[in-house]
């Protein structure tokens, strides 16, 4: 691996050229030896490359002008390899990426976690300052996809990225985080726990050697890898200027399928997404898109779902008292122990998924103090969330 690292760190030629050298000489070690003049280039050509190329040493000769002799030292590569061994970082060369290779991808990636290939993957990206809407759809979609065996790729940034990773992990899914800094650096540091759990259950990759600081230029390059590692890219929420749009453009260059979640047209936080759709660059994401089984019906709770389970009599915007009467009748008719649960769930469904404890108490005609038992039970069963007096549907 030493020579792979050396070649990766080599300045003066780009990843495409490095790929060409590897193809030409077989391994980075040979490239190194040829460059340092230890090996006779003609011998190499005789030993097996002659069939492929007429003038095998041309590539190296062309480079030798650009490359400083000090770069022939292996010291730096040794140091990096040492750190990698100590920190249990392993290195994957580009041939093992398991994706369609692109010339401008780095020739190696530093990895922590488990490298799985052959799964469908979706990159979910979006702005760091996202709204409640962006957070909610990111989490929902990420959970739905991850639960069905789709790899979720993102950049472990604040906001949408972290929600996508977390949601995927929460349903036991596989997720890949592509970092814009050295692989051993957790940036942003708030994501320490997330970083550890991705390493444990997913994969963290970076093209930067350990200890490499994050900078202006590292993130756009990181975005390119996200695009390359995803079969499709979904932008859930992005403003007019957002790093997620760079990922989107990259994915188009790579010929990936691009989706965007639309937002309100007057919402600056969705302007980037809306623009992608308007300009015909991205498809408008509809629930159920991106799944293997095109026929599977999926909905987003509270956003797209119809209040179908509610009694038809309630549809005409009823007053709270009327709802109460109606729900009470239902309650008496069901006459089951869990009827209170049902009444509360029905109430939540007709009131856009949120209500308050006093409201529930009024409808059940009970003292609010006696409601905590059933509310706690529902909360434990992941039906609702309770904070202060507010009660809302669990997402």
């Amino acid at each position: 691996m030493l020579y792979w690292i050396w070649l990766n760190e080599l300045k003066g030629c780009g990843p495409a050229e490095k790929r060409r050298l590897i193809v030409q000489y077989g391994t980075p070690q040979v490239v190194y030896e040829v460059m340092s003049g230890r090996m006779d280039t003609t011998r190499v050509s005789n030993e097996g490359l002659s069939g492929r190329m007429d003038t095998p040493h041309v590539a190296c000769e062309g480079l030798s002008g650009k490359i400083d002799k000090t770069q022939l030292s292996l010291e730096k590569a040794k140091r990096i390899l040492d750190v990698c061994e100590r920190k249990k970082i392993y290195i994957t060369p580009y041939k093992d990426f398991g994706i369609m290779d692109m010339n401008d991808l780095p020739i190696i990636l530093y990895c922590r976690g488990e490298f799985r290939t052959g799964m469908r993957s979706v990159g979910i990206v979006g702005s760091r300052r996202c709204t409640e809407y962006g957070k909610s759809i990111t989490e929902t979609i990420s959970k739905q996809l991850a639960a069905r065996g789709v790899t979720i790729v993102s950049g472990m940034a604040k906001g949408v990225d972290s929600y996508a990773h977390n949601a995927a992990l929460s349903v036991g899914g596989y997720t890949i985080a592509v970092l814009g800094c050295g692989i051993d650096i957790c940036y942003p540091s708030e994501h320490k726990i997330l970083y550890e759990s991705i390493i444990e259950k997913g994969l963290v990759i970076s093209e930067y050697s350990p200890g490499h600081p994050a900078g202006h230029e590292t993130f756009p390059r990181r975005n390119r890898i996200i695009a390359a590692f995803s079969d499709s890219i979904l932008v859930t929420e992005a403003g007019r200027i957002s790093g997620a749009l760079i990922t989107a453009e990259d994915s188009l260059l790579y010929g990936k399928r691009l989706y965007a979640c639309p937002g309100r047209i007057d919402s600056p936080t969705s302007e980037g997404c809306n623009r992608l759709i308007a300009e015909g660059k991205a498809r408008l994401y509809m629930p159920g898109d991106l799944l293997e089984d095109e026929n599977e019906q999926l909905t987003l709770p509270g956003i797209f779902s119809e209040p179908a389970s509610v009694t038809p009599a309630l549809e005409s915007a009823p007053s709270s008292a009327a709802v109460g009467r109606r729900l009470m009748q239902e309650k008496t008719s069901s006459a089951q122990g869990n009827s209170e649960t049902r009444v509360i769930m029905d109430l939540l469904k007709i009131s856009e998924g949120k209500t308050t404890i006093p409201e529930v108490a009024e409808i059940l005609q009970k003292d609010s103090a006696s409601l905590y038992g059933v509310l706690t039970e529902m909360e434990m069963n992941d039906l609702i969330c309770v904070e202060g007096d507010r009660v809302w549907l669990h997402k």
Partner: protein
Amino acid sequence: MASQVKSFSIQGIDGYVVDIEASILPDDRQSLSIIGMGDTSVKEAGERIRSALGDCGYSLPDCKIVLSLAPCDRRKRGSHYDLALAVALLLQSGSLRADRISEYGFIGELSLDGKLRSCSGILPMILAAKAAGVRKIILPTGNYAEAKLVSDMTIYAFDRLKDVILFLEGKQASPNPPEEGAPESATSDGPDFSEVKGQNSLVDAIVLAAAGGHNVLMIGRPGCGKTMIARRIPTILPQMTESEALEVTKIHSISGMIKEGASLMTERPFRAPHHNVSLNALIGGGMYATPGEVSLSHNGVLFLDELSEFSKSALDALRQPLEDKQVIISRVNSTNRYPAAFTLIAAMNPCPCGYYPDRKCRCTDYEVIKYRNKLSGPILDRIDIQKFVNPVDLFETDKAAPAPSSAELKKRVEAARLIQQKRFEGIPNVNCNAAMSTAMIDEFCVLDEESRSLLRNACDKFGYSARVIHKLLRMARTSADLAEEKQIRKEDISYVLHLRDLDKSSGMMGI
């Protein structure tokens, strides 16, 4: 021989006797010096005495006058030595002849025209006098009511220095005690919980806090009623005992916060320092150490509004008083101990913009967490109840059932406290559920199988630490006490699980 009269000084919250001596030495010029580590207010007494005596018709001789406050190695401050200094001087100069002067103690500040002005710290000084066997006290009329709190003392209250002199010479009978002002009417017109509408669940949590001595953090947007509720908490705390009231009065007396003519403080104190309060003002201190807000709220409520805006050092300094129920202020020449057993009621916004989790809120999860992390762990650890406060729809509250009054709530609190007093009888320093140690939790908070599994599931789900579980158990004990139940029930557990909103909310952030 130098003349000697008695006055008093204060150290910490206790007084001690100061012997005031006067000596007149022959000299060409007139001079007056006061020795005994007095501060500026003591040094300036000389000018006040000169002028006040002049008003009474005395002039100082052309001599060197030395006035001494013993013990001379302790710092003294305050203007209440004036009267004693003047009397000592008159005795020494021979202008005043009085018998049994050593039976009297003197307290009072002099005005330039010879009037007596009232002073602070009367109660601890009179207690010190009693302890030292001084049974007769001469002091300004304004301090009479406070001085009368101490039994078996003869208090003589005067308005003018002249009257004091005539009384000591036996030319005037002892003065009539000043008329006592009508005692302040009971709390009928004070704030009452019946005015708090639409916040029933929060009021329930406050009742639990009052009953078990738990500290409370209220989290809600500006104007949702946090301060209104905090202000009413003293009205539901159990009645202070005589000794508690005396201690509170002592602290307030030292700080000069007893109104003229007022006597014992019967209502529990409520203190609400602003969030830019200095460390010394909060905890106590200064060169001449004085009690801080934590001690002024002793046996009452310390309300910290906008908790996250307080300086970190001020908040961290709260840790000792919250733990030990007292503050120890050490200075080079003295160490003062001030009691500080208060209930901490804190309030803060849920996020920097104040509107989380409303749609109006523009803060990201990161900003919210950063804002909440301003409170250091050790402080949050000492707060049992964290409750979100929801804004009230004023137009809906008319329809709501009338809220219970403070008197009703107080009855419930006192009943629960009684149970606790019996439970902790004979255990020092523990008088309420909040003070239970872990060993006591094992003993008094036994759960049945159902409650145990509910608690375990909830703690797994929300990731509560062992410390939080102990808090939940303490609160469940109080909840059962309020219901006058011997055993903690499942209802108690499911109720107290709703009292850790902040933990829950921060746990649900998506990062």
